[in-house]
């Protein structure tokens, strides 16, 4: 049973009640108090109420936010080098600790280890650190001190706290500065549409798939079983995660924040590049901006081999890193590398097509047919990579 201090976003009725109170407060301040209380203080207060009363480890989360704020503040002030490796490592310390401690088996005797695990395992930690890395990289050259309130609102914004969508500081802060003006008919309409679709995806379709298909599959070790699990798990994951993201967008909209979208018909993607623009888009963009591009730039400055080789190395490293981020377990790492391999194959295919000025795989085939075949290949490739990710195979 969910209790106070155990209410993660969108996991219980209590959370929805809290969100409704937040919306009522924000609307009340806007329409009854005529916006006399500054929006960002109201938002910070409501976030603090959630963390203090409902979040699993309030002091741990506050401590983490303070660490990241002070670290990014000091880095902005004293670190003037263009090399981003050190700042990223400093800001990523909590992730490294959490991921490495999670793979060490703890026994009852290892109380120190258990204490360490308890300290660093904070729900939403990865996303929080990712947000701060993008904050640091984007804002490191900007003038002035970014206030703790603005930083707190951005990092701990409740609807996106646990698993995104990953917002950017500049975009988020523009919404916060617009304050109550952002709570208008258009935004509320958008929020309502996202809410209805999110509820349908997460609590009806994903739940029905889980309850009536996924948990009833009998593992008899046959290929049919593994294929059934693979496709069902993919659909379950999509509807659950996309539903979650829509709900996060929806409550963001109701509070005046235009949270970016995360999923957009991903199973119609024709290649890996398009897939990452449609599936968990904010993470795909984040990896592209803060890992792929800097790695590629670094390899270019070192004049390392040809452009296509540099791109492929950067792609493999980026997706392998994504695998490690998911967890240090083998299935996460292999799944990440597999996604990297898909991207490398596609990248090489595009390169070859450009060089030879013809489609080296499909030749003169009808473009509609090419599209259908591409969607089919991509869907199955994704299903296999997600199947590996699920940990069912090893």
């Amino acid at each position, binding site marked *: 049973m969910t209790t106070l201090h155990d209410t993660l976003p969108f996991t219980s009725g209590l959370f929805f009640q809290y969100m409704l109170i937040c919306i009522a407060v924000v609307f009340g301040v806007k329409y009854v108090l005529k916006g006399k209380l500054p929006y960002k203080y109201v938002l910070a207060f409501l976030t603090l109420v959630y963390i203090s009363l409902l979040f699993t480890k309030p002091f741990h989360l506050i401590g983490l936010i303070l660490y990241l704020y002070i670290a990014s503040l000091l880095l902005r002030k004293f670190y003037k080098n263009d090399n981003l490796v050190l700042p990223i490592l400093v800001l990523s310390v909590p992730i490294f600790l959490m991921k490495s401690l999670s793979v060490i088996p703890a026994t009852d005797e290892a109380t120190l280890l258990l204490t360490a695990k308890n300290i660093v395992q904070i729900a939403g930690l990865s996303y929080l650190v990712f947000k701060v890395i993008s904050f640091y990289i984007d804002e490191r050259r900007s003038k002035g001190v970014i206030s703790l309130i603005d930083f707190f609102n951005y990092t701990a914004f409740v609807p996106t706290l646990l698993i995104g969508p990953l917002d950017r500081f500049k975009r988020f802060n523009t919404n916060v500065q617009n304050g109550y003006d952002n709570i208008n008919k258009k935004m509320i309409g958008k929020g309502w549409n996202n809410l209805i679709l999110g*509820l*349908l995806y997460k*609590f*009806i379709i994903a739940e029905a798939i889980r309850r009536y298909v*996924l*948990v009833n599959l009998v593992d008899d070790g046959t290929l049919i079983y593994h294929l059934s699990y693979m496709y069902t798990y993919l659909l379950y*994951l999509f509807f659950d995660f996309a539903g979650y993201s829509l709900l996060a967008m929806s409550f963001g909209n109701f509070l005046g924040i235009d949270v970016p979208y995360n999923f957009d018909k991903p199973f119609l993607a024709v290649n890996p590049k398009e897939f990452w623009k449609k599936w968990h888009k904010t993470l795909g963009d984040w990896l592209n901006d803060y890992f792929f591009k800097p790695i590629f730039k670094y390899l270019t400055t070192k004049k390392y081999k040809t452009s296509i080789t540099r791109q492929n190395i950067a792609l493999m490293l980026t997706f392998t890193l994504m695998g490690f981020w998911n967890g240090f377990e083998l299935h996460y790492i292999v799944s990440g590398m597999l996604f990297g391999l898909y991207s490398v194959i596609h990248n090489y295919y595009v390169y070859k097509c450009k060089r030879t000025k013809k489609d080296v795989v499909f030749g003169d085939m009808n473009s509609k047919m090419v599209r259908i075949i591409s969607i089919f290949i991509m869907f199955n490739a994704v299903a296999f990579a997600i199947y590996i990710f699920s940990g069912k195979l090893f």
Partner: protein
Amino acid sequence: MGMIKKIARNTLIYFLLILGYVYLYAINIDAVLNPSKEQEVKSKIDFVYQQF
């Protein structure tokens, strides 16, 4: 999106939402169909959010 398409889409979404709510939550259809079956209280799947 055309008006008719929008209305059709919304009708479908609301219909599925209400039907799903009634079927999955309002009446426990499993308990009605299989009264002797032990009801599952927890997912058997390793929930994907564990990684976060």
